[in-house]
């Protein structure tokens, strides 16, 4: 072997090594999308991703928030195979994604990780399980609570709501708190009613009602459901409950924040709105009242999921594992008003002095996911129409639910 060949061989080797090293050092890039819920939420997400990148130098994460028409954009991107590697899916439409095989099952990843699916609250995780497989991990949690205006309660001599309230207590309080003697602009009402079924189905559950049977058939014409639906819509007919627009607000939390209603049934998402938009309001939050059959609530959540088309499933899973992991959840809950999805964190000291957050978290234990099978969105729309038909159109509760049943059973053939 001549000196020349050795030198050439060394050079070639060095070159190969350099190329090889630079290739292996090139970080994997993955993308994550969610809807954009304002600059604070976006900043919080960026902070989480920065922390993740620091722990995983081999993975770069590009954050692509979608400001409007989230569902539309995600669908189009999935169809065009350009979907982000990790994205949010709301519980209400996750069955449409899960049932069609658009998502990657996460069971094997969970098995090989330090995590356990049992660490997440059952009612939250359930929203992302289809045919026994897990298609996403819940990001956070939310349930409904009764927000109450302490000043209006005090002025009318009504005791604040507590966890042991019954429907009767709830209705009587609303009646006492309704004050319609003055000019319409000065009237206050006991309660603001939401039209969206996510706001009122919890009351049907408290009476043993259900939207679907175990095998996915429509069940909202069962007497337990109808009876509760009549009770709830009667609150409007009796004049003690109003729609937000009746008192000049577009959302329930605004009707409540403006002091026009004494109570509102809203999710934990109203807490930051009330603090920032209505800082002078003197309010509290309690668990929903108990119905004739017992407790019932609706769990609202969003998953981090991975599309089947991703080119980097391992990196995408790593990101989900980090985002839903205990350390990151602690960082998120202590930095704002987000509530954790891991049951162990419900007892976190951060919530010790936050009665309103505790009330929301207590609901998780007896809630069911805000999700109604693969026709979820159509069922929600038709149930809202049933509510409108009673409250606005003057139909009876039975007739309105029967109409919804007819429309849906034709579509669900």
């Amino acid at each position: 072997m001549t000196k020349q060949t050795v030198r050439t061989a060394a050079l070639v080797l060095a070159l190969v090594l350099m190329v090889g090293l630079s290739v292996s050092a090139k970080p994997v890039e993955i993308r994550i999308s969610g809807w954009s819920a304002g600059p604070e939420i976006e900043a919080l997400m960026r902070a989480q991703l920065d922390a993740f990148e620091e722990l995983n130098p081999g993975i770069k994460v590009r954050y692509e928030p979608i400001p409007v028409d989230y569902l539309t954009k995600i669908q189009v991107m999935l169809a065009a195979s350009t979907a982000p590697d990790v994205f949010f899916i709301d519980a209400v439409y996750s069955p449409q994604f899960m049932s069609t095989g658009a998502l990657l099952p996460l069971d094997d990843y969970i098995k090989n990780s330090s995590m356990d699916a049992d660490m997440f609250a059952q009612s939250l995780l359930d929203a992302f399980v289809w045919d026994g497989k897990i298609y996403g991990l819940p990001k956070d949690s939310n349930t409904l609570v009764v927000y109450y205006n302490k000043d209006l309660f005090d002025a009318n001599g009504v005791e604040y709501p507590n966890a042991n309230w019954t429907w009767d207590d709830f209705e009587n309080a609303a009646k006492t708190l309704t004050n319609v003697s003055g000019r319409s602009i000065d009237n206050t009402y006991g309660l603001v009613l939401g039209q969206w079924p996510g706001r009122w189905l919890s009351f049907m559950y408290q009476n043993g009602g259900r939207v679907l049977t175990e095998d996915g058939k429509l069940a909202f014409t069962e007497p337990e459901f109808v009876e509760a639906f009549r009770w709830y819509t009667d609150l409007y007919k009796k004049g003690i409950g109003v729609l937000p627009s009746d008192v000049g607000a577009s959302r329930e939390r605004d009707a409540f924040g403006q002091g026009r209603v004494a109570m509102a049934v809203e999710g934990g998402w109203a807490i930051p709105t009330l603090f920032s938009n209505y800082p002078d309001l003197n309010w509290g939050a309690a668990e929903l009242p108990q119905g004739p059959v017992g407790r019932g609530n609706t769990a609202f959540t969003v998953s981090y999921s991975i599309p089947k088309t991703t080119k980097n499933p391992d990196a995408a899973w790593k990101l989900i594992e980090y985002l839903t992991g205990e350390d990151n959840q602690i960082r998120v809950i202590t930095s704002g008003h987000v509530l954790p999805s891991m049951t162990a964190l419900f007892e976190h000291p951060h919530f010790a002095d936050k009665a309103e957050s505790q009330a929301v978290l207590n609901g998780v234990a007896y809630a069911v996911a805000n999700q109604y099978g693969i026709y979820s969105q159509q069922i929600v729309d038709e149930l809202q129409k049933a509510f409108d038909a009673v409250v606005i159109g003057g139909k009876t509760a039975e007739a309105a639910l029967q109409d919804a049943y007819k429309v849906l059973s034709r579509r669900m053939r």
Partner: protein
Amino acid sequence: MRSIKLSTRQEEILTGYLCLTPYFVLFGVFTVYSVINALSMSFHEYNVFISPIFIGLQNYYELFLDPLFHKAMANTFVYSVFTVLLQTCIALLIAVLLNQKIWGKSFFRAAFYMPAVTPSVVISLIFSWMFFRDGVFNYVLSLVGLPSNIDWLNNVQAALPAVIIVGVWSNVGRYMLMFLAALQDIPRSVYEAAELDGAKGWNLLRFITIPLLRPIITLVSVLGIIGAFQVFTEIYIMTSGGPLDATTTVSYMIYTNAFNYFRMGYASSIAWVLACVIFGFSMIQRKILDTEIYY
């Protein structure tokens, strides 16, 4: 090699087509291709995630039996007839008024045109606040002693009129501008001749202005019909098709089926029926309005 020699005329033609190319490329991709694709999709069941399944005319069959589609069609007709009539008349009236020598003419012209350059989302949001039970509309009604306890957007009878008001308000400016431009083109001499014959005020408008504006009235009403049949933003922002489908229009129904219910095939079939209806209407309208006028 023979060099190609073009005559001046051929060169002009070539330049013309070259200048049009960017438009035709975009038109081809985003209109022609999409429209044809939608036609083929309307014969399929397609939910984005699974490849389309051919189902023949089933979507159309379902469509013609769907009570919501009938309702949406009826709503769309009512909306279109009222918006187009009102906006055309009001726009013409304002244009004629602003064509006079009046004080503050340019200010008013700009002011009436403002809605045309305001995003319709903004307009819809502001109007939906004005339609609240405690809102401006009810306040005005109460001043003149009319029933004023209407929750407009949650009232089955009032919701569609509310959406029509917004539609008219946001379109008037654009069409006023078109009428103004056309009014400038009517020669003074025609009016002078008529005045010599003793015509005044209303008769000038009735026998000179309106007949001479006929082509532009056709244009405005055809454009108005096409726009009205496709109304979406106002509905999406203000009512989401409610209450009780009172404001569900055909285009809103297309949207919910495609993007909320993941029924692309069904949505495409609705879209095609809507396109045919719009086409038919425009044709009828042209037949009625577009007769030649000689003076």
